[in-house]
């Protein structure tokens, strides 16, 4: 009896050690154990991409369930996400809508190093945007780019030759004016073009296309010719003024979809919207096409050259507070989302994935209602996409400041030179010195 007691004690101690070892997490996680990871999304009812990704992933990883958590749409998404991350209640995997706030997340230590995921991805063009000091902190799953949408009926009505891929911005301005005159001549109320109130519609192109342009240099001279052309079109009545678009809250979906404008520079995300709206009746049914964005000069025009345009990738990152047992599943999800299978699934709902392959193009152009002409295919597949927001501590501040400059210039409150000079002074004294 007396001898039994130490034996019992040592057995208990051994058992405790074994049990403690189980909780230690050093043991390899069973790859087939059921796991649930959470993913942030917005407007889930009208934005099917998150469910597409979750379902597609489930097909190859039956043990992993991706649970969607709904966040506010628009700019509120980032505000809400930042709050949740700071409070430690954010989902395991979250979306970065553009590059504007990537710096905030990354420098704030809110993104897990996912270099091992990206090394297995091959050459996805937008990967570089998410790299800091040689490490990757997110992967892209969407890569929209800006193109030129045009209404073929209105071009025919105005008897203007539709875009052929050879346009510079001067050609675009010229065509818009001729459309305006032509449409007026046949009694149509439609304008030549619609330029939405986003600062990107001017600044995004100027930054991407002008040789040597650099947002972070604080020298904004590259914006001048782009603004002069916009002001010229406004003054000629060839596009609704910035003031009218603002005060009447014009939407580009209605302006182009309801045939109020023949030309619309916009991102490729609008393809899916336009298809859906033409189906639901929110947009008219008319033949349309996409052309490459007009270019800075002739060196990048024509279908044998590669047009330059802009667009931020949409990326996925992992919350560093994720529990260890879920990290592998979350990384596998990122690998899937940026890869070719997810690409095809996304193209099936009209969305442009991070890597446009032949299979993606075939799927997207196989959708009902997508234009079938060669130029549309060319515009969709061939381009150099530069990021709208270079990743830096100063990006958010500079973009806010330039957004104010945008409204100053387009409302004719100040001349282009004076407004840009003021923007440069402010950039130097208020943002770049921080």
């Amino acid at each position, binding site marked *: 009896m007396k001898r039994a007691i130490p034996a019992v004690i040592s057995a208990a101690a051994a058992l405790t050690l074994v049990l403690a070892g189980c909780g230690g997490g050093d043991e390899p996680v069973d790859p087939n154990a059921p796991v649930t990871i959470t993913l942030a999304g917005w407007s889930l009812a009208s934005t099917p991409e998150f469910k597409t990704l979750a379902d597609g992933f489930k097909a190859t990883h039956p043990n992993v369930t991706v649970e969607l958590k709904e966040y506010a749409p628009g700019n509120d998404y980032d505000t809400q996400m930042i709050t949740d991350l*700071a409070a430690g209640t954010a989902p395991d995997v979250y979306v970065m809508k553009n590059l504007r706030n990537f710096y*905030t997340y990354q420098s704030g230590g809110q993104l897990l190093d996912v270099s091992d995921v990206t090394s297995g991805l091959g050459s996805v063009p937008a990967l570089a945007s998410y790299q800091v000091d040689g490490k990757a902190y997110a992967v892209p799953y969407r890569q929209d780019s800006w193109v030129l949408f045009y209404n073929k009926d209105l071009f025919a009505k105005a008897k203007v030759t539709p875009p052929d891929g050879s346009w510079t911005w001067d050609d675009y301005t010229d065509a818009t004016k001729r459309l305006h005159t032509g449409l007026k001549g046949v009694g149509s109320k439609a304008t030549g073009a619609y330029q939405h109130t986003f600062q990107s519609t001017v600044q995004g192109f100027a930054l991407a296309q002008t040789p040597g342009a650099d947002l972070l240099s604080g020298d904004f001279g590259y914006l001048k010719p782009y603004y002069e052309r916009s002001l010229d079109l406004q003054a000629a009545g060839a596009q609704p003024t910035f*003031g009218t678009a603002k005060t009447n809250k014009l939407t580009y979906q209605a302006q182009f979809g309801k045939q109020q404008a023949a030309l619309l520079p916009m991102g490729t995300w609008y393809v899916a919207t336009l298809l859906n709206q033409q189906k639901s009746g929110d947009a008219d049914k008319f033949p349309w096409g996409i052309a490459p964005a007009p270019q800075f000069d002739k060196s990048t025009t024509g279908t044998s050259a590669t047009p330059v345009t802009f667009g931020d990738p949409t990326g996925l990152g992992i919350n560093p507070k994720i529990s260890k047992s879920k990290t592998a599943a979350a990384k596998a999800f990122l690998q899937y989302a940026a890869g070719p299978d997810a690409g095809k699934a996304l193209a099936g709902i009209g969305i442009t994935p991070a890597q446009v392959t032949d299979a993606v193009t075939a799927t997207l152009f196989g959708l009902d209602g997508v234009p079938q002409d060669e130029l549309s295919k060319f515009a969709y597949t061939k381009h150099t996409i530069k990021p709208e927001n270079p990743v830096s501590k100063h990006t958010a501040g500079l973009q*806010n400041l330039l957004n104010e400059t945008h409204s100053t210039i387009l409302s004719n409150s100040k001349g282009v030179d004076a407004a840009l000079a003021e923007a440069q002074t402010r950039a130097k*004294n208020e943002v770049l010195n921080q």
Partner: protein
Amino acid sequence: MATLPRTRPRNRRLVWRNTVAGWSFILPNFIGFAVLTLLPVAVLFYVAFTSWNVFGVAEWTGTANFQRMWGDASFWTALRNTVYYTAFHIPLTLAAALGLALLLNRKLRGVRFFRTVAFFPYVTSIVAIAIVWNQLFSPEYGPINALLRAVGVDDPPGWTTSSTWSMPAVIIVGTWRYMGYYMLLFLAGLQTIPAQLYEAAQTDGASAWQRFVHVTIPGLRHTTFFVTVLLTIESFKVFDLILLMTGGGPGQSTLVLSQYIYQKGFEENQFGYASAVSIVLFAICFGITVIQFMVNKRGNS
């Protein structure tokens, strides 16, 4: 003398009981106030002296935020615009509210209907107000400019799309929205002026204007003071109306302090700097209210 030791404990018990009862009455409200307002305000005073950017630790930077503010042209623009708004919004709303109150303090047919109409803007959603007024102000297609053109104004203003006219446009809408509310306060004030005073003044042969200056205005002194204090605070922290109508634009022409705080804090994640600007806004509101109270006190004595 002998009774003193016996009454003291009972007294203490009574005080204790009253204190507990008092606290239990205000506690439900006070907990909410403390958690949602008092604590954040206290934290704000700390954050203002740090470089907190929402993630990580707030690093103490001393008065760096205030020094930065001193040289920040945008801060001064925002302050100037806030003063511009306040300087016009207060007298205009005060006059409009008083005028309406006097008009609707008579025995008119359907006076209740008109009072309701005047109060309507105040209970209407600010989002709806901003959108509808923006359309009314639309420079090319809006009815306001159509009217101005009809009466012979060749070059009507661009309103919310012009940096010169955007602030007047916002002030007009602000006045229109709030005059109904302050009218209600003035109406209540007017009811408290005894009718005998007017009768006596009339017997003495005072004209309507003299009665207004010598009876109504002094009779409304307390109401006017109260309304002015409320209006001042409300003007200095104007935010939603401007954010929805112009977003601070065109350029920075309608950028006000509270929007600048929002921009720095929630758009650029510079919570330390945004808190410092909030403290300045608080100090301005506080200072002006103290001055108003002092002036009012002197007037009383």
